[in-house]
């Protein structure tokens, strides 16, 4: 048994309100992550990550999911495999990733060097009333990715660590996953188009020149 497993038996007390005090704000962080990256190919998970990405500027090379929960990472994987010369960023939330946790092992098997996953982890299902996700207790998503063979994984908790992540995300060997602990707070809704066929066609036209 590893220390980690044995440690679990201690079941440390969990502070359910801690995420309200996380210092990183998701909107400025996402804006800085996408700034000056016009060629970056982006897939977002449904809900707040899609609103965050849109608040930073609606763009053709972003495919925001409105559903298909659990699909963001495998969608990013397919895109990364099809476009090995481009950088692919999956921007998603903790609840969305938890629904498709097996995809981390699928990516680990495939090892796409051009893929990054950034998890905006507020330890909440923010769209449905703020119920706690598993990351509010013991699930460590960066550790899961590392255990699946991702070469670069990290969890950032401070604004200066987040700034450093923005500067160095693509320097680390890929696939890379960063969990960014963001404040549990309500931001204004900024929604992308919700017609999926439009989103798909405009993405392909931007990348391939034809829908």
């Amino acid at each position, binding site marked *: 048994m590893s220390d980690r497993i044995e440690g679990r038996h201690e079941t440390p007390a969990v502070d359910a309100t801690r995420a309200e005090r996380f210092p990183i704000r998701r909107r400025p962080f996402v804006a800085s992550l996408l700034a000056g990256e016009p060629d970056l*190919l982006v*897939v977002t998970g449904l809900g707040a990550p899609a609103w965050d990405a849109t608040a930073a500027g609606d763009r053709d090379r972003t*495919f925001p999911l*409105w*559903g*298909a*929960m*659990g*699909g*963001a*990472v*495998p*969608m*990013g*994987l*397919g*895109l*990364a*495999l*099809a*476009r090995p010369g*481009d950088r692919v960023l999956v921007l998603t939330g903790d609840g969305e990733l938890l629904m*498709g946790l*097996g*995809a981390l*092992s*699928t990516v680990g*098997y*495939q090892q796409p060097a051009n893929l990054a996953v950034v998890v905006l982890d507020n330890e909440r299902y923010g769209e449905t009333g703020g119920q706690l996700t598993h990351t509010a207790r013991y699930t460590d998503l960066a550790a899961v990715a590392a255990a699946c063979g991702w070469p670069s994984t990290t969890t950032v908790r401070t604004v200066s660590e987040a700034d450093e992540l923005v500067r160095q995300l693509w320097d680390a060997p890929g696939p890379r996953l960063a969990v960014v602990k963001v404040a549990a707070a309500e931001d204004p809704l900024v929604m992308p188009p919700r017609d*999926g*066929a439009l*989103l*798909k066609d405009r*993405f*392909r036209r931007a*990348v*391939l020149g034809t829908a």
Partner: protein
Amino acid sequence: MPETETDAAAPAAPPEPSWVAPTWEVLRAAGVQVVAFVPDAGLAALLRRAERTDAVTTVPLSTEEEGVAVLAGAWLGGAAGVLCMQSSGVGNCINLLSLARTCRFPLLVLVTMRGQYGERNPWQVPMGSTAAEVLRASGVLTFEVAHEADVAPTVQAAAAMTFSGGGAAAVLIGQKVIGAKAFAPAATEGAS
């Protein structure tokens, strides 16, 4: 060690069913570059061909629904693909099939059937008997194939409807084509 003995010791792949080669040709002609799959014994020969083809990327999945998203992502990047699974995997895909329906992503699915004809594992029957209905209810055009010679032409038709028109189509390769899993005659408890 004599060469003949070395050869005999190597695990020989079972003979390839006659539908596999023409079906693989059809898929390649349709431009398939990605094969995402959860394996099934009935798909083994086709998957071996995929793995031997340098121009094709094979993506083993942890659950079938991932494949719907992987192929949607590949299509965003300009690559066509096929999703292969056993009938029991169809139920896993339902919510992710919304991608194909709402975004009109082309989605070509090959399903090898269990629980349909001569099945000796009753746990395969619930999805085996409902896979086609589940796919149709989810907005996927569904073609059921009961004869080996019909597999390749049906895949060709489904691929045309998928990649040219957009939308989702599935070819269900029946257990009459695949054959029922034999299970060892003496097997009792503990058989898989």
